[in-house]
């Protein structure tokens, strides 16, 4: 998936509509799914999906390598956050759209981009770690808001998110190498 996406993005930079269509076919459900989960309505999710893919077409230089799936998830979340912000005043941060150095686990997981596979990994986390991670990612709220809503001390929320992400990383390492 990664190599193909890299090749396809090269062709998108050369204004190749067929390459763009192949990228759309491979990733539109992922983008739409993230937007739908965050916004909760199909109309908004379609608008975000359209905006994300138009951005891929008009600004392909923003993808600077790494895993395309991981990158487009970040773009989708940030655009959905824009919509949430327009609906109510929010101050949460966006995901950084530039990726850290290519990561083997991320590449393998996205290469087999299987939602159920990652869902299982996430389900292995204790609820006290999984819930703030999901709330933070899909709810688009800050850790301070998570602490306020759940009545858990701020420091505890921070520690649980970090512990959860580390454990998720470990679970994915184990699953991918199994």
């Amino acid at each position, binding site marked *: 998936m990664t190599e193909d996406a890299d090749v396809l993005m090269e062709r998108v930079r050369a204004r190749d509509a*067929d390459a763009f269509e192949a990228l759309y076919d491979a990733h539109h459900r*992922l983008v739409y799914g993230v937007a739908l989960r965050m916004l909760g309505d199909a109309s908004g999710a379609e*608008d975000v999906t359209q905006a994300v893919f138009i951005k891929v077409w008009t600004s392909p230089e923003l993808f600077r390598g790494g895993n395309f799936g991981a990158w487009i998830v970040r773009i989708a979340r940030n655009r959905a956050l824009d919509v949430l912000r327009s609906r109510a005043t929010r101050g949460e*941060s966006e995901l950084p759209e530039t990726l850290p150095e290519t990561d083997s686990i991320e590449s393998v*997981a996205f290469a087999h981009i299987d939602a159920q596979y990652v869902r299982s990994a996430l389900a292995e986390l204790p609820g006290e770690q999984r819930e703030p991670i999901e709330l933070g990612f899909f709810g688009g709220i800050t850790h301070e808001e998570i602490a306020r809503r759940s009545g858990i001390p701020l420091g505890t929320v921070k520690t649980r998110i970090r512990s959860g992400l*580390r454990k998720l990383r470990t679970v994915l390492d184990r699953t991918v190498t199994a």
Partner: protein
Amino acid sequence: MSDQPYHEMLDDVALYALGTLPAADAQRVRAHIESCAECRAEYAALAPAAALVGVTAETVGDLANCPGTLLKPRIMREIRKTAATPASAPARELRSPARVPVWPAYLVAAACIAIAIATSLYNVTLTTQLRDVQNKLAASTTRSSQLAGNLADERSTISEIMSADSKRFTGNLGEVIANGSKLYVAMHDLPAAPRGKVYQAWTLAKGAKDMAPSLTFVPDSRGVAIVALPVDARLTDTVAVSVEPEGGSKAPTSKPVLVVPLN
């Protein structure tokens, strides 16, 4: 940041990777990561795990939670407006890199000289003309394939809205068609939207007081637009269309060009 205990700093790096830090804190952590190798390594370890959380939302195999069938044709129509000509972008070779043969200038010159020696200028002209015709034919063939694909997408929608089971509600410049739970707006003779503006559909759910924003769209060159609305027709009382700024509005900002009660 430097006064912050190290474990708290690592916690903040995790929050930054997940995207849950307030903007000001995110900026502070981003700057710190640039200068701290340990935190940079922590971020590199956690960012992939955070991004993968998004994968759990993918709607594979769940048709009820998939985008409408008209979304892809709508996006592709926009894309093809600025796509390269097919001759410079070979189609249907998505598994291999696009290899567009580019001859160095000196080779082209050498080839031209060789041809000039071996043949008359008249023949060179014919060869060039033949190549032009071949390129135009290739472009026309690819364009025909694209149009056929779009036509297939639109035909499936049209067959639904033309079904004898569909209920039609006519309004100014168009009509609303309900087929079971599905709902379509079919506009005709719609003038092009002013620069920076689009048309936006609105739906009023039964029992609701306010119109809810729906999809934005633009008509084609004939003034025709067919839009599948992502609401349940059986639960919808009224459909409207108005001109709105690009990106759409949360509430109508202009007088609707179409208002159709579904009863």
